[in-house]
């Protein structure tokens, strides 16, 4: 992203929007159900010896294979007349105990290997991790089988086998975290203070990896219960008379057709047990995953949602413009707070004109640009008000099909970082041809011809070879030329360039600007040029709109703004450009930070950073006052009007 409105909330997380972990967990009703079921199973398993149950091993040949709900045998009896309810509970005890023990053993040894490998690094790391890789080269269950083959069938041996094959999961996870921690300052400090590696490992590092160990345990314990039950099912685990859920299922299988309940019931128990563990484990993982919390894993839909009142749609301004934005408001809803990234923006671009929109990161300039064609991600973004007219057509009321037709057709975009904006898995040629084909149904040969023409147009040498290149094989400048070529594919009337030169180095920057400027003059297209760089503005823009905290604070022709800035913010921005064309201009040289747009102060948003602030600046609504039709400033005491106040 060029601008950071969507990231802005991450910088200043509102405390109230983030409920506690437990509350979140209980909010997840499935996880709560899982937790309750799991707790009940564990309690019953613990209390089994105290419950008034029949002896699980007492055979009663007279009562063989009683069905469910029989007198005195709630779940019926098995082929030896043993009470199934009693056997089920005792079996659950065994299965739980075996699963949990296997998890603990695997966690202990796996974490130990992971800690040592991650901390020691170098040769120790290589040797341990190669060993782990070798174990992982075997199919999981097969290795467990081989181990049981060696040790001989038996519950304890099955437990060892399952624990052993799970060691790699722990070792890998823990090693990753540990090797990261081993390079941190607090570890260096401990080392300098003379602590031994063992002390460092267990006193400094272990507490930090403990949560990861616990999470890995919670995600593997279900598996281990399933797998030990599986081995018992095959007759390789629990041996009679001892029984766990798996061996009960295995025994019941022999009489599946005559008494299905004998095998169905223990299987159901395994399922319920594992399901409750998984439900709870997923809940825990979701709660702990910061990406899910911030909503940053939600999928943006094809087009920004529009939620504006019909009565509030402002009419076009009447200027003969290609693009005419009126009172555009775009918001992001994250948690319970609303970030007004764009808070009522009016601007227009005429044919053949280049309008620069300038501002710091988070000023809303990119969101303004993305809003035009509905490219702001929804969720969390939505267009909350205003209108965008493309040659008089209200874009926010247009149908999805119409918008798709306009995208890449009449309105083309060039984005900031050409490495991330080009698809890494398709060749440049394919992407270019696709852009043409989306709007012009041409034959294959014609498509290729046109793609070649476009690449030559943006002055890419050897275009024929470049067609077969992947984006990562091109330089940054070449990639951006490809992006521009894509934008020019269908004779757009409006080109929206969102910091197209920011990711490029200076000489390439100048070339790309010259290219765009030339193309504009040749094709007479309108350009909306988003940048934070007044150097770039002076090179290409006819007019400028300066944005701050989601609003335009000053607008005018490029020369008026550069020579005679009236808003103190504009003035400071221009001061930040020591030499035109120099990269890495230090925009943060303006002291203070832009306000977070979920809680804008009353009055002028710049007041807190303004050297000329007066008490009146902090109240009321400031108008964008126009001194000429296209020359306006949103300031009570603009520069050059010292006496006028």
């Amino acid at each position: 992203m060029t601008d950071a409105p969507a990231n802005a909330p991450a910088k200043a997380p509102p405390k109230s929007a983030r409920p506690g972990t437990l509350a979140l967990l209980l909010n997840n009703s499935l996880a709560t159900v899982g937790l309750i079921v799991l707790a009940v199973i564990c309690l019953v398993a613990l209390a089994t010896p105290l419950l008034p149950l029949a002896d699980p091993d007492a055979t009663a040949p007279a009562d063989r294979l009683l069905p469910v709900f029989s007198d005195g045998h709630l779940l019926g009896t098995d082929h030896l007349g043993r009470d199934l309810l009693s056997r089920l509970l005792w079996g659950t005890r065994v299965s739980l105990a075996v699963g949990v023990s296997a998890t603990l053993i695997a966690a202990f040894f796996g974490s130990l290997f992971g800690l040592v490998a991650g901390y020691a690094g170098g040769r120790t790391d290589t040797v341990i991790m190669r060993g782990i890789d070798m174990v992982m080269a075997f199919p999981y269950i097969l290795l467990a089988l081989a181990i049981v083959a060696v040790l001989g069938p038996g519950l304890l041996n099955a437990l060892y086998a399952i624990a052993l094959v799970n060691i790699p999961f722990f070792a890998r996870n823990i090693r990753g975290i540990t090797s990261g921690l081993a390079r941190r300052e607090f570890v260096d400090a401990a080392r300098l203070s003379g602590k031994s590696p063992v002390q460092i490992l267990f006193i400094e590092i272990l507490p930090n990896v403990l949560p990861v160990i616990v999470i890995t345990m919670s995600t593997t314990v279900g598996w281990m219960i399933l797998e030990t039950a599986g081995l018992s099912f095959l007759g390789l685990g629990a041996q009679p008379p001892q029984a766990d859920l798996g061996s009960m299922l295995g025994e019941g299988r022999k009489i599946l057709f005559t008494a299905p309940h004998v095998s169905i019931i223990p299987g159901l128990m395994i399922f319920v047990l594992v399901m409750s563990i998984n439900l709870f484990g997923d809940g825990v993982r979701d709660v702990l995953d910061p990406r899910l919390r911030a909503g940053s894993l939600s999928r943006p839909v094809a087009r920004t949602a529009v939620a504006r009142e019909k009565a509030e749609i402002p009419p076009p301004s009447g200027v003969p413009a290609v693009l005419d934005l009126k009172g555009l408001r775009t918001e992001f809803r994250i948690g319970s707070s609303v970030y007004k990234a764009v808070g009522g923006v009016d601007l227009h671009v005429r044919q053949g004109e280049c309008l620069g929109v300038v501002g710091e990161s988070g000023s809303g300039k990119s969101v303004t640009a993305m809003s035009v064609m509905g490219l702001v991600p929804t969720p969390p973004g939505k267009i909350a008000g205003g209108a965008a007219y493309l040659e008089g057509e209200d874009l926010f009321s247009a149908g999805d099909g119409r918008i798709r037709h306009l995208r890449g057709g009449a309105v083309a975009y060039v984005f900031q970082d050409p490495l991330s904006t080009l698809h890494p898995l398709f060749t440049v040629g394919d992407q270019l041809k696709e852009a043409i084909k989306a709007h012009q149904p041409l034959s294959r040969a014609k498509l290729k011809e046109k793609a070649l023409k476009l690449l030559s147009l943006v002055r890419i040498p050897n275009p024929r070879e470049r067609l077969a290149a992947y984006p990562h094989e091109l330089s940054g400048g070449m990639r951006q030329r490809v992006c521009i070529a894509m934008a020019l594919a269908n004779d757009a009337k409006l080109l929206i360039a969102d910091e197209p030169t920011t990711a490029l180095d200076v000489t390439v920057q100048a070339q790309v600007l010259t290219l765009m400027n030339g193309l504009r003059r040749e094709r007479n297209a309108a350009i909306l040029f988003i940048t934070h760089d007044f150097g770039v503005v002076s090179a290409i823009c006819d007019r400028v709109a300066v944005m701050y905290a989601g609003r335009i604070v000053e607008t005018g022709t490029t020369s008026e703004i550069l020579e005679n800035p009236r808003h103190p913010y504009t003035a400071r921005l221009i001061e930040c450009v020591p030499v035109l064309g120099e990269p890495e201009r230090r925009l943060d040289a303006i002291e203070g930070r832009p306000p977070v747009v979920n809680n804008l102060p009353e009055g002028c948003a710049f007041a807190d950073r303004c050297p000329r602030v007066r008490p009146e600046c902090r109240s009321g609504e400031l108008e964008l006052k126009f001194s000429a039709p296209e020359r306006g400033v949103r300031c009570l005491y603009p520069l050059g009007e010292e006496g006028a106040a």
Partner: protein
Amino acid sequence: MAFYIARRLLAAIPVLFGLTVIVFLIMAMIPGDPATAILGSYATPENVARLNAQLGLDKSLLQQYFIWIGNLFHGDLGRSYTLNRPVLDEVLERFSATLTLAGTSLVLCSIFGLLAGIVSAVRQYGWADKIITFVVLIGISTPSFWLGLLLILAFAVKLRLFPASGMFAIYGGGDLPDLLRHLVLPALSLSVVATGVIARLTRTAMLEVLRQDYIRTARAKGLSERKVIYKHAFKAALVSVVPVIGIQAGFVIGGAVYIETVFQWPGIGSMLVTAISTRDLLLVQGGVLVVAAAYVLFNLVADVVQTMLDPRLR
């Protein structure tokens, strides 16, 4: 690309060697005396010593390994004493049955897992997503051997739609339709867990990809949503899902042990279970070795496919 495949094949050789060492060591670690195990506890000491010499067990471990690996290169994995036939013959025959079952399951779980994952991601937080997520959770929590029994009860016993056991009908079977009929229930039981795992991963991968800048570019170009999702997003998501499918191949082949037992499928899994109970260790050794080698090759294929998809890896 050919160069890359050759390089990957070369890199697989040490792994395969490592496998032989581990398999050999596992078998060498077995407590007790194989000769006594074969001859029974009433055997005379002279007979035991003779058999030990015959089996080469009086030599050092290293010598034994080299003899074993030498024989391996000649396709000699020893003789199964319970079946009285060469281990290799038995293992290969069984393995082809397992491959039929596991291969079918792998295809099923890839198709359904990918589809479910895509739908789930595209309809994130919608009803389809909620239902799929829940069904997937049920799927990965279900013991496959139990599911197999339930399917037998429902489709073989109650509805009489599919046979409950075997690979071919005993009378008049043996053709492809017969095989497919026998394949339905075991392949279904075997693919459920892997389908769930693949679906989950596909969903996450798709959601991650759909937020990328190049997806916005695809939309800005005016591509239809169908193209954006199924061409641009899916291809990128596939790059991270393919290795998972490779790993699932291991789980499917391993899980076949249960399913083959439940459905009496004449595969390597049921062979291993029997061989372990009868302590036919050469058969176990051969079976484990062949399956592990196949798994290495499966992962190799997954690696190559991933590289074919992603030019950056070349």
